[in-house]
Each structure stands twice: as C-alpha cells, then as structure tokens.
C-alpha cells in the first residue's frame, strides 16, 4: 500500500550520511517496507538511541533557519522537537494485533455501529506539517463486535505516522476489516491540512474529505446513505 522504493537514490544525501556516520541508524529499507504492512518499522525501545541523531538534525535546522540555537528559548528545543516528532509518529511502533487481541466479542448484533467525531491528528508526509480533523467509522458486525475505544485506537495507530489522507482512510478501513471480518466497513475523514492553510495556497477554510467503503457499504447505496446521514447529524 505504501510505495516501495523505486530505486532512485539521492546521491548527495547518501553521501552526507555516509560522511556523517549516521549509517548505524539507517533502517534497512527493504525490511521497513515489508514491515509497514503487518509489523512495525520501529521498535519502541529503539527510540531512545535514535534521539541523538534526531536532535542533531533539529539543531542544524535551527541554525540554518537563521536562529540562535544558544538562546534560552531554544536551548533544549532539538531534544523537545525530536521527542515530539517521535510521539507524532508513534504509530510505527504499533500493530493492530497488539491493540485488539482481547477486545473482540461475540455478539449477535448485525445492525450498524458508528463511532463518530474521533479527533485525528496526523503529519503530512510531503511537508511534515500536521493535518487534523475528524474520523467517522461505521461497521456492520458479522457475529463479532469490537470494543468501541479500539476503533479510536486503530485510528491512532495509523494516523500517528507520515500519512496521506487517502491512504490513512483506507488503512483504517482495511485494518478493521481484517480484524473483525464484518459485513461492511465505512470510514470518512474530514481534515484541515496545515500545509494548505499555513503555506502554499493559504486557503484557511478548506477541508479535505475522503472516504472508504468496504463490503455492504460499497454494494448497497442505502446502507451507505444511512451511515452518511447518521454520522453527519449534530
């Protein structure tokens, strides 16, 4: 789902890293591509040892922007920014299996279940700038229901990554689908992209809406309509 390496290598950057001995921290790209689907491309305990490299990178960014990295307000900023960035991408640690293992229940319920207005915060993978909004999730169980907060946790796993809104929507839907095997899953995300608001075209009020419909939501327009009207209501 996430693009795999197309073989282009950025020579200057590679050289920079070779010369700066960051190699020890470079992820084996093949491994991480594989892992992205089913596993984790980052171990939680590896975060600590990655911190110095991230800190150094942020310190260099501050310098290059024309700021004085020695002033009081900026002294610990590289560390804070590095930790913040790790927090904002902590979805790489987590897999659906870890979250869901105990919270799937057998219920003889086959009506729509909707959890709406889940706040979502993610990072645009193109500009590394946040986008945020609301997610509405609906599914029709097939003998198996999931703990409600687990839907929000699934959103967290996939959103706390470098993302594209379309892919995020699909990953959430497919994740739920694979875990529960329901009759249908619908996910709608409405988000504001700071990369469009703070820079570039600078359209303050623009919102991006994406949706993924699987199973009966895809096949049956009435089901889809019911979900859309229930998730829109105030």
């Amino acid at each position, binding site marked *: 789902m*996430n*693009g*795999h*390496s197309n073989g*282009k290598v*950025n020579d*200057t*950057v590679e050289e*920079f*890293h070779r010369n700066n001995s*960051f190699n020890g*921290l470079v*992820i084996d*790209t093949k491994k991480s591509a594989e892992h992205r689907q089913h596993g984790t*491309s980052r171990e939680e305990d*590896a975060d600590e040892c*990655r911190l110095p*490299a*991230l800190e*150094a*990178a*942020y310190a*260099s*960014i501050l310098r*290059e*922007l*024309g*700021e*004085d990295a020695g*002033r*009081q*307000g*900026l002294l*610990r*900023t590289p560390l804070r*920014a*590095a930790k*913040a*960035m*790790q*927090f*904002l*991408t902590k979805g*790489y640690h987590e897999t659906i299996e870890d979250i869901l293992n105990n919270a799937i229940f057998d219920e003889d319920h086959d009506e729509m279940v909707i959890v709406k207005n889940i706040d979502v*915060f993610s990072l645009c*993978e*193109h*500009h*590394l*700038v*946040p986008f*945020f909004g609301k997610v509405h999730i609906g599914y029709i169980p097939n003998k198996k229901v999931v703990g409600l907060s687990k839907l929000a946790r699934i959103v967290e796993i996939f959103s706390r990554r*470098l993302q*594209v809104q379309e892919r995020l929507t699909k990953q959430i839907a497919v994740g739920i689908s694979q875990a529960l095997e329901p009759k249908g899953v619908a996910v709608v995300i409405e988000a504001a992209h*700071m*990369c469009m*608001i*703070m*820079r570039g075209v600078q359209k*303050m009020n623009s919102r991006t809406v994406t949706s993924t419909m699987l199973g009966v939501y895809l096949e049956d327009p009435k089901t889809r309509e019911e979900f859309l009207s229930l998730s829109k209501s105030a």
Partner: protein
Amino acid sequence: MEHSEPTEQADGGSALNGHFDRTGKRPVPGGSGCASAAASAGAPQPPRAEPGAPRPVMESWREERTRSVEDNQTSLPSLAAAYTTILRGLGEDPQRQGLLKTPWRAATAMQFFTKGYQEKIIDVLNDAIFDEDHDEMVIVKDIDMFSMCEHHLVPIFGRVHIGYLPNKRVLGLSKLARIVEIYSRRLQGTPSGRRSKVSAPCHLCPTRLRLRVRASTVQERLTKQIAVAITEALKPTGVGVVIEATHMCMVMRGVQKMNSKTVTSTMLGVFREDPKTRDEFLALIRS
C-alpha cells in the same frame, strides 16, 4: 535602500514622525512625499531632539533582517539533509515514492514558516501612513495568524484582533496584517528575561546566522510586538491587540486538550487607561 534626495544629516536612523530611515531623511515641506511633512508642525518632537537617549521600546523597529533570500537558497541543502536524517530516525523509508522529495519540501516549508526573519517593518510600512483627521476607533479583526512554537517546532494558529485610536495618522489596513505576518512567521517561545547581544549579522562569513536576540517571543510577546510596532509607526492615542490561538503542541501531544485556546492581549495608551474604550474595543471584536 537608495534615496533620490541627498540627505542633510546622516542621523543613524532615528525615528522621525513614524518614518524610519537609515539615512535620517527628515520630512521637509515639498519633500519626497513623506506624508507627515505637512503635519510635522503639530507632530510630537522627533527623538532626535533628545540627544543620546535610546528608548528601549524603539528597538522593535531596528529589526535586523537576519536572513536574506540568498541565505534561503544556500541553506536549503543542509536543511534537506537534516530532514532526511529525521525521516530515517523515525523509522521511515526516505526512498519511497511519497517521501522522495519530502526533505526539500519540508525545508522550504520551514523557511516559509520563519520568513518573518527576512522582513523588516520599515520595508512594509514606509509608504502607507496617511494623514487623516479621524479620531474614532479603527479595528481590524479576525486576522488569521500562524506561527511556530519554538519549543517543539509545531504550529500555533489563531486570530489577531487589532484596534487603535488614530492621532491624525492612519495606517493602510493591510499593513496591520503585514505587521502580524512579520512577527508571527518566526519561532515563538517563552520570554527569556534577558537579552543577549550577539555579533551583528554578517552575510559574508560562514557563521553568518547570528542573531541579535531580543527577548524571544511567545504569544504574549507577539501580542506586545505588534502593539509596539503600531505605536511607534503611528503614535496613536491608543492601541489594543488581542490574540486567540491554539497551540498544536498542547493539542496534538503532551496534555492533548483538543479545545484549549490561549488568549493574550496588550493595551497601550488610552486603551489601557480608559476602561470604556477598552470595553468598546472588546465588544466590537466579539460581535
């Protein structure tokens, strides 16, 4: 800045009736279109008349441009390399299609978010101060503001409301928004409580990026800078600035309070002294 008229006195850039000029050109009748020329008779004494006493509040006008457009170009490769390191450090694959040009895009974006360092108030305001015999409140509200938290490098966004009571001099309305832009497109943080002076910026030397540090800014400080800049430009009867902002560092991480907003205000002049004026301003920005 080139000036067509020879200057009589190199004044070292003192403030003269709101026209700040490195060569200290004085507004003279029939001069080069300085709007305050005709009004200089009734205007307050220029600080030139008080020898040698630098007013600390004036320093906000002395914003050195610490970065130029050329600097942006030259720093881009190292910024991009830093971002590539960050991508790897986060466990991502910088070679995948979506991330291939991300370091460059992120670097350019970050330079845009800090473009306040490239600009000076003087450049923005010089021509847009007009003499108007208007002494009623002027308010520009709901100016969208975007800044970056200097602690976490995460966005801050909100709205600025500015009101002022002119004293014979008004400012082009968009210039208020431009003042907001200059000060907000920087890294905002906590007041440092001390000012450290570092060497003056030198564009020729490799460590060119030294910055004279005024107390670093946070939302409180940003509010004050805007108010002070308007005061020094126009010498109005009073200025009020209110900023209402959301700090993503509190919303996206840390305490994660989605709906929290931070509100700060600065009231100067008659806005501070007269509660009724202040109330009028606050009521008008709420409506």
